[in-house]
């Protein structure tokens, strides 16, 4: 007997030792529960048992069971919870404790064959219940069984309490991790403000992170459109943006804007936007930067493991913080986009214009130059940027003077047709210097505009040999006038011819002939240009001048006559000088006619002459042939138009080749 008691004691001790191992080794509460229950029932030789955990809502759930079906009816257990504290960690005999266990509960417990109930209390908190069935073979529980149950239930209570603590710690840890994730998300978005400048990339980043961090099922970012009340979805996530047409005039958006605060919409709210979006749980926040509402962020359906639920005020606070950060980032990105666009536009304009543009800072150093500027200066960007204008234009003191003048007088200074040695000996430019002013009219530097007019200058110089400056300018102003083709117009033609020059030149040396003609033509052409005549051609010693082409004016004929009179006067002076040099005088006859001609650029693209042709021209030449030395003959049409201005003498009509009738002619009196 002694041996039996000793053996039983050893058995109990080994069971308790095993209990320690179960509690230490098992890492999960389910394993602890099943281990403790197995050990308890085995130690006290009970047929069945279960451990119940008290859940939220005062309901019990199975932690472990042995012989008691999990589907057993435990509905009446909850009724005794308020009274259990009185029986804190005591062993309640289901059949003897009548105050606590009423008949109906007793019946339920009898069905599942539970004999002993032990409420597992930690301090005042009920954690669960340990239920023990009858002992094997109808034996009764002994005092040692009771002590063992006490020890085991105490340890089980501690284990459950520890588990609850661990759960709470894990739950807190998860909360902390989620908070950390929220902070990281906010931090990442604040980083994005300075690093991501692409609006699409930025808005997607913000939206995706917001959806993820708030466990939303989908979301979208809407931007206001200046010309349209429909909000534009700029980024969407899991949302079909094509079907989404939302007006900024919806009441909910107006309210958000007015109150400057987001909103949470729940199932029962049934607002128009919920109906329109066919979604019940929404959270909407404004995107506000610099006091302006740029748009809205809408997230939909907060996910949980149990399904969808409404967003809460903490979600609203978080999304508001994300939206505020995002709005600043988007505003920055938009600003950057606008500035870049403006910069590109300016660069594109500057690079496409033919005028060289150079900007100089307050220190006189070049800080930008466009393509045309580099081309005109025949240099590379690296040779110019950062260089002082004094060095850059050292070969052109006039340019330096102009820059200094503009800087000193704070006004636009320009020069045209100036030689630009910085580029080359031949380069001619129009140079303009303008002060670059800041917001408060302070000088930030200077802008130099350099227009290369070398080619124009060459053309002008060449052209000027044939036509007056006025005609050159007019032609250069309108390229169309240089087209091949012609037009009928009324002009006055003037012909001059040196009388007897052929026979005279035969007695002269060739170089003397050329120098005499050059001297003569130089004087005559000056007079032609004085009266804006167009030098049509020089044929030998003959000169053909047109008035009224390519440009015409009312006094074409008057100017032709004045030209002729001045020419004859100039020849007189010319001859006096020749006589002094003991050279033979020359005498010129001049003929003037007016009438319709065909004028235009006649020839090929490579060799083109502006001239006039027609009977009017031929008659002008005949009148010149008819005129004697120092004489000016005009047709009756010219006389008719100018008889009030000049003194004429009517001459006998002459027969002209190609004309059946004689032509009336007049001679200018001295």
């Amino acid at each position, binding site marked *: 007997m002694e041996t039996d008691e000793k053996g039983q004691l050893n058995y109990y001790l080994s069971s308790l030792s095993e209990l320690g191992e179960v509690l230490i080794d098992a890492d999960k509460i389910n394993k602890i529960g099943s281990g403790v229950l197995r050990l308890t029932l085995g130690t006290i030789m009970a047929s069945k048992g279960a451990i119940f955990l008290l859940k939220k809502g005062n309901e019990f759930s199975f932690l472990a069971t042995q012989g008691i079906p999990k589907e057993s009816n435990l509905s009446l257990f909850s009724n005794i919870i308020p009274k259990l504290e009185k029986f804190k960690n005591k062993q309640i005999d289901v059949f003897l404790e009548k105050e606590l266990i009423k008949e109906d509960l007793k019946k339920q417990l009898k069905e599942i064959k539970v004999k002993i109930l032990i409420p597992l209390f930690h301090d005042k908190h009920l954690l669960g219940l340990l239920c023990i069935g009858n002992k094997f073979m109808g034996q009764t529980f002994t005092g040692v069984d009771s002590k063992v149950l006490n020890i085991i239930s105490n340890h089980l209570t501690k284990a459950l309490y520890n588990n609850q603590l661990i759960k709470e710690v894990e739950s807190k840890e998860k909360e902390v991790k*989620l908070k950390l*994730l929220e902070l990281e998300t906010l931090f990442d978005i604040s980083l994005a403000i300075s690093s991501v400048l692409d609006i699409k990339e930025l808005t997607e980043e913000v939206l*995706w992170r917001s959806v*993820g961090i708030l466990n939303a099922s989908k979301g979208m970012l809407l931007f206001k459109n200046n010309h349209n009340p429909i909000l534009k979805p700029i980024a969407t*996530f*899991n949302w079909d943006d094509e079907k989404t047409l939302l007006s900024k005039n919806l009441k909910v958006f107006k309210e958000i804007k007015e109150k400057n605060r987001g909103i949470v919409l729940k199932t029962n709210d049934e607002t128009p936007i919920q109906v329109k979006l066919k979604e019940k749980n929404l959270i909407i926040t404004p995107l506000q930067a610099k006091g302006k509402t740029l748009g809205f962020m809408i997230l939909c359906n907060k996910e949980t*493991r149990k399904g969808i639920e409404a967003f809460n005020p903490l979600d609203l606070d978080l999304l508001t913080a994300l939206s505020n950060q995002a709005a600043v980032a988007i505003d920055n990105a938009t600003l950057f986009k606008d500035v870049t666009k403006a910069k590109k536009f300016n660069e594109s304009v500057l690079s496409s214009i033919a005028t060289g543009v150079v900007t100089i800072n307050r220190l006189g150093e070049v800080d930008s130059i466009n393509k045309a500027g580099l081309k005109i200066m025949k240099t590379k960007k690296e040779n110019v940027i950062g260089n002082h204008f004094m060095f850059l234009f050292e070969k052109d003191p006039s340019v330096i003077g102009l820059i200094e003048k503009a800087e000193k007088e704070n006004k636009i200074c320009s020069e045209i047709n100036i030689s630009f040695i910085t580029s080359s000996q031949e380069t001619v430019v129009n140079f303009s210097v303008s002060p670059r002013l800041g917001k408060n009219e302070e000088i930030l530097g200077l802008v130099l505009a350099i227009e290369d007019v070398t080619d124009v200058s060459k053309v002008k110089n060449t052209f000027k040999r044939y036509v007056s400056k006025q005609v050159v300018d007019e032609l250069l102003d309108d390229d169309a006038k240089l087209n091949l083709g012609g037009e009928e117009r009324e002009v006055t033609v003037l012909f001059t011819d040196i009388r007897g020059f052929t026979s005279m030149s035969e007695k002269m040396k060739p170089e003397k002939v050329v120098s005499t003609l050059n001297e003569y033509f130089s004087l005559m052409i000056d007079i032609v240009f004085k009266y804006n005549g167009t030098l049509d051609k020089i044929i030998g010693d003959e000169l053909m001048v047109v008035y009224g082409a390519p440009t015409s004016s009312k006094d074409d004929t008057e100017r032709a006559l004045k030209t002729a009179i001045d020419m004859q006067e100039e020849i007189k002076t010319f001859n006096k000088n020749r006589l002094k040099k003991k050279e033979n005088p020359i005498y010129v006859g001049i003929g003037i006619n007016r009438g319709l001609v065909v004028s235009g650029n006649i020839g090929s693209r490579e060799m083109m002459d502006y001239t006039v042709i027609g009977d009017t021209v031929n008659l002008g030449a005949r009148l010149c042939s008819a005129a004697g030395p120092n004489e000016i003959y005009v047709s009756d049409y010219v006389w008719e138009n100018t008889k009030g201005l000049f003194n004429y003498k009517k001459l006998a009509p002459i027969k002209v080749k190609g004309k059946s009738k004689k032509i009336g002619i007049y001679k200018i009196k001295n």
Partner: protein
Amino acid sequence: MSDFSLEVKKEGSVVIIKTSGYLNNVGGEKISEVCYEEMEKGKNLFLLDLENSKVVNSIGVSILIEIIEKLQDVDGKLGYYNLAPIVEKTFNIMGLTKYSSVFYSEEEAIKGML
């Protein structure tokens, strides 16, 4: 980004699940369905190719944690590759990477799982 979908392929004993879309409740459940089906067939090495899943939420993460716990019971492993920086950061913060591995290519991932 459209609805969640996945493709499953096997490289030896490793089951590779390539996902596409939001790794949320729906996405996580779809992944767990595949994993549990394959675990019943005796598979215990799983790789997630998350190249086309740029967004993950905490529900998706908690489902992955459940999968990891179940795999631990059968000495299995879960690994990931092609993670977007946001997803990798989320996994790190939520503690997933303590119990599962992140790789940077499929080849490296398969080698790392064996």
